[in-house]
């Protein structure tokens, strides 16, 4: 598979909700994935896998960086995600408290 963005030197991070799709993203050449659990707002997986179950599975399934999302709004929750083997974090939920929505969008795209 080929990702046209990659040919232009653009970093590609794919949001996924299962190990199966995560592997496909890695095979397709994605630089990282956002693994988003059942708790997360917005579009979500049909498997309804929670962050607590999804993250260890995804971390085992691929070698590219995994960004956790879904149910993470505090430092304690961030640490819990890190313990499950993560390297980066997505703070969308915490940032929803912000008065400046633009910041949320920028951070979501990171």
């Amino acid at each position, binding site marked *: 598979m080929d990702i046209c963005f990659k040919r232009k030197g653009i970093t590609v991070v794919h949001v996924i909700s299962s190990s199966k799709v995560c592997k496909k993203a890695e095979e397709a050449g994605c630089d990282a994935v956002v693994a988003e659990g*059942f708790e997360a707002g917005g*579009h979500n997986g049909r498997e309804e896998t929670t962050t607590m179950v999804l993250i260890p599975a995804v971390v085992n399934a691929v070698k590219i960086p995994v960004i956790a999302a879904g149910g993470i709004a505090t430092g304690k929750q961030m640490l819990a995600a890190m313990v499950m083997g993560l390297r980066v974090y997505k703070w969308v939920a915490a940032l929803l408290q912000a008065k400046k929505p633009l910041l949320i969008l920028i951070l979501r795209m990171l």
Partner: protein
Amino acid sequence: MINSNEGDTILTLKQLTPVRLIKNNFYKQVQEAENKGASVEELKAILGRARAKKGMFEGQLEEGELEIGQVGANVRDILPAAKIVDEVWQGFKEALANPIKMI
């Protein structure tokens, strides 16, 4: 959102693309239609176009789609982004230094 509680968001529209949203009037319309056994086409008609934009960018809190996660129920204050990041980071450092408090 700061007044929302546990159970106030739900994963819905599973016949289309599953989405977690906060329960508002739009959700009630979806729920009523689904309870009556609405078809995919009927649900698409209710959803219409740019429903999420209406909710999250145009401020139509009752008729728009508000994609909010479960953890929104834990959020109680509206704070500047810098303070949120600082609090998360401080909380993380404290938890890392003392992850389990034995009683």
